[in-house]
């Protein structure tokens, strides 16, 4: 594969990771909403947003970790 192709592949991997994390955020929000909707509107909304944000924080770390891994591979390759 050409250099341009490899670069594009790595960037697309990052974007795919971002999309997976986005779906996980929505899923966490909806699941928490479903589980807590009997608690009343405000606790339910608060908990759902908290769950979504927790996935954002974990996801952002994962995203950066993937970037570092892909970058290391580049450094190791001849």
């Amino acid at each position, binding site marked *: 594969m050409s250099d341009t192709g*490899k*670069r594009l592949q*790595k*960037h697309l*991997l*990052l*974007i795919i990771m*971002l*999309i997976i994390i*986005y*779906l996980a*955020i*929505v899923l966490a929000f*909806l699941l928490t*909403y479903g589980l807590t909707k009997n608690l009343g*509107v*405000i606790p339910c*909304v608060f908990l759902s947003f908290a769950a979504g944000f927790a996935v*954002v*924080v974990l*996801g*952002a*770390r994962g*995203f*950066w970790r*993937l*970037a*570092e891994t*892909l*970058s290391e591979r*580049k450094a190791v390759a001849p």
Partner: protein
Amino acid sequence: MTFMLALTWASLSFLLTYFLMPLGIKLLKSRGWTGVDVHKPVKVECAESGGLIILLALSLSFLLMFLAGFLDRPGVGACLTIVSAGLVGFLDDMFTLRQRNKVLLMMLAGLPLALCYAGAGSIRLPLVGSMELGAFYYMLAIIMAVNVASNLTNMLAGFNGLEAGFAAVACCFLSIVSLTRGEWSAAFISLASLGALLAFLRYNWYPAKVFPGDSGTLMFGAIIASAAVLGGEEFLAVSLMIPAVFDFVLKMQHGKPFAQRRIYGDTRVNEAGVLSPPGYAAFSHAFMKVAPTSERRLVLLILLSEALIGVLALIMMLLLGGW
């Protein structure tokens, strides 16, 4: 007919921005309002605070919309919020406000829109449907949304065309939903903003002649938040802001989140125009880290990420409800 009207507002703000911008750039340069374009092999000076010209063009468009009777009460509130956010950004460009003061002023900027919803408020979500928050929490949520969106767009910035491109992609998605739902105030405002942003991109795209400054970036966030609230498209707007949220979270994970540029310096650039990230985590740095990237390519990749998330959000709204 109403669709044609929406396109007319978009064209008007496009033409106003397009023809006012060269004059604005000359004026800003003559006043010494310039900044160095640091991501180029040869450093050049560009006009700063180009957001002021967009603010002027949008204010004229909004005024005409109001005088012609095309804006309802929440629409007027949204316009006032957008203009106020631009003015706060202008103050920041002139006097470099402290972060605390900027947050307080942006809360005031969100007030006109929030007060227009002083009744009851609900947000529409896929699968969940309408989620009733109650008047007080909805007003609070609007003020927070304007503040958060403005500061997030202000943080994910610094590359030619990124800030305006990010807001233009968001306005594009928000306009599509507003038009299909028949939320005309939201459609008029988001399309007028889209027109102004596209005209601005003509001058701000790589290699830039003008930067938006805080008057632009804070206003762009307020445009996204206001259009979303007005059209009931909160889910879509939050989804579109995900790259900016990631950028914020990554920067906050550092021990000294507001001193990173002082400690690590700016992104470096070689003679070929390839960017190297400084040593702290950020959304844009991840793309630079994995493979050699030029400024133009980086901006395109970030906009592509935003657009793909927008498409996914639209699909979810279509399949799971909430359109």
